[in-house]
């Protein structure tokens, strides 16, 4: 490691102590914003998951002509799978349909009509890109045209409703997340700028004695990353505690991964670096 870099690192660390009050304010600001963002990310991820699970339920049923032989049924299944936009096809036999009916309606058609009137069917799941009303309807039309299909049951209104509301939820959530992220970036950049401004004299003297711009920048960038890292680390820790608290009370309520917990720390580090670079850039131009 070069002496210059060692010096920059030492200055970066010592600088935190020199501008103690400004550093405490910056680290606290970053810790609070990163905690909020970390929680928001987990919330966003879970909301997206719920919206996605609703969309995953957007399937349609294809009732098969009762007279179809099993080889013809297999052929029809292959034809449906081959349709563009179909992800998966599940066969529901007459017996299985009867079982489901008994379970769902708590009565037995065999006792009422004396035979199993329920036709075999396929439950068709669409690919991710086709879970939109227009594209889904196109697949439904193509399925209806296939030989051996008796009827296609597609809950158009429900489909449209789920699509519309899940889209609104996702859009609002993403917009809110981006707004909070932008506010965090501006807040951190400005707070770091204040820290740098408090060390204006040091920077001016560095310029006077002939320090290169890179040499002047390095300690402040390291300082920014340290402040961002400490603030972000505190944010990650607080998020972990909150998540554990929620999970103890409501098990399986939140889905949380390690990258989500590390997000405040990583973002803090990045914001610390970027914020210091922006603050320094503005300052060096006016120094």
């Amino acid at each position, binding site marked *: 490691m070069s*002496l*210059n870099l060692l*010096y920059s690192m030492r200055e970066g660390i010592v600088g935190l102590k*020199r501008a103690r009050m400004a550093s405490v304010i910056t680290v606290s600001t970053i810790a609070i914003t990163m905690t909020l963002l970390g929680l928001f990310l987990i919330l966003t991820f879970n909301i997206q998951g719920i919206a996605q699970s609703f969309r995953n339920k957007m399937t349609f049923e294809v009732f098969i002509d009762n007279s179809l032989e099993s080889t013809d049924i297999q052929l029809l299944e292959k034809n449906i799978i081959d349709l563009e936009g179909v992800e998966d096809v599940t066969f529901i036999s007459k017996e299985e349909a009867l079982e489901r009916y008994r379970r769902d309606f708590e009565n037995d058609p065999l006792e009422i009509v004396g035979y199993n009137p329920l036709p075999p069917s396929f439950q068709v799941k669409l690919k991710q890109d086709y879970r939109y009303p227009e594209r889904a309807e196109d697949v439904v039309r193509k399925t209806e045209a296939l030989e051996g299909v008796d009827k296609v049951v597609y809950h158009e209104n429900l489909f449209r409703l789920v699509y519309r509301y899940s889209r609104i939820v996702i859009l609002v959530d993403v917009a809110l997340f981006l707004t909070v992220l932008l506010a965090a970036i501006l807040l951190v950049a400005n707070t770091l700028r204040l820290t740098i401004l408090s060390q204006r*004299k*040091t920077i*001016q*003297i*560095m*310029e*006077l*004695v*002939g*320090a*290169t*711009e890179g*040499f*002047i920048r390095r300690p402040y960038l390291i300082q920014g990353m340290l402040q961002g890292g400490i603030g972000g680390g505190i944010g990650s820790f607080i998020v972990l505690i909150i998540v554990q608290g929620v999970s103890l009370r409501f098990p399986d309520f939140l889905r949380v991964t390690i990258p989500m917990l590390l997000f405040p720390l990583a973002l803090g580090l990045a914001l610390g670096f970027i914020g210091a670079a922006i603050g320094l850039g503005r300052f060096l131009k006016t120094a």
Partner: protein
Amino acid sequence: MIRLSDVWYMVGGNQILSEINIQVKAGEFVCIVGPSGAGKSTILRLVHMEMSPTRGQVIVADYDARTVHKHDIPLFRRKVGVVFQDFKLLEDRDVYENVAFALWATGVPRRRIKKRVFQVLAEVGLSHKRYAMIYELSGGEQQRVTIARALANEPYVLLADEPTGNLDPETTEEILGLLKRINGKGMAILMATHKEDLVRRLPASVVRIRQGRMVE
């Protein structure tokens, strides 16, 4: 060493300097004398290449203000020592660190830094106060730290902007004595001051400035 030829400097239509011609040869002591606001500090800032002249030529050693590249300015400044009326010292560091700072900032190895700092502190008579904090020093001592810092990188010229402006008569004498000694060792000095009586006591050529123009 330093040559200003027909230098003009304007800011937003206001004429700050006009027709300035100054030359400082190696080992020479030149004083720019004039009242406050006459443009003395502007001349020093032009020589330090903090800004470019609107017209004319500012040449310091091999560097021409009109053609010098932005990236070369830090290298240039390492060879031009500067001393200010308000010292511009780092209050949160001790004497040693303030002088060493100029060497650290220019990438001098640690072993050489220690040796050089002790050398320049001895030169300005502050060896015994090397670990004192800046706020513990008198005005004269603070100015001597500034001079030590300016000398640390072995510059070929020393720019002094009102170096005795904040000092009492006795301390002023001390600093003038120090500057004379430094000049006696062969270093060129370009000093700006508003004190007429001061320059009479110096072995210096005098350039008089009034309202941005040379009067003598």
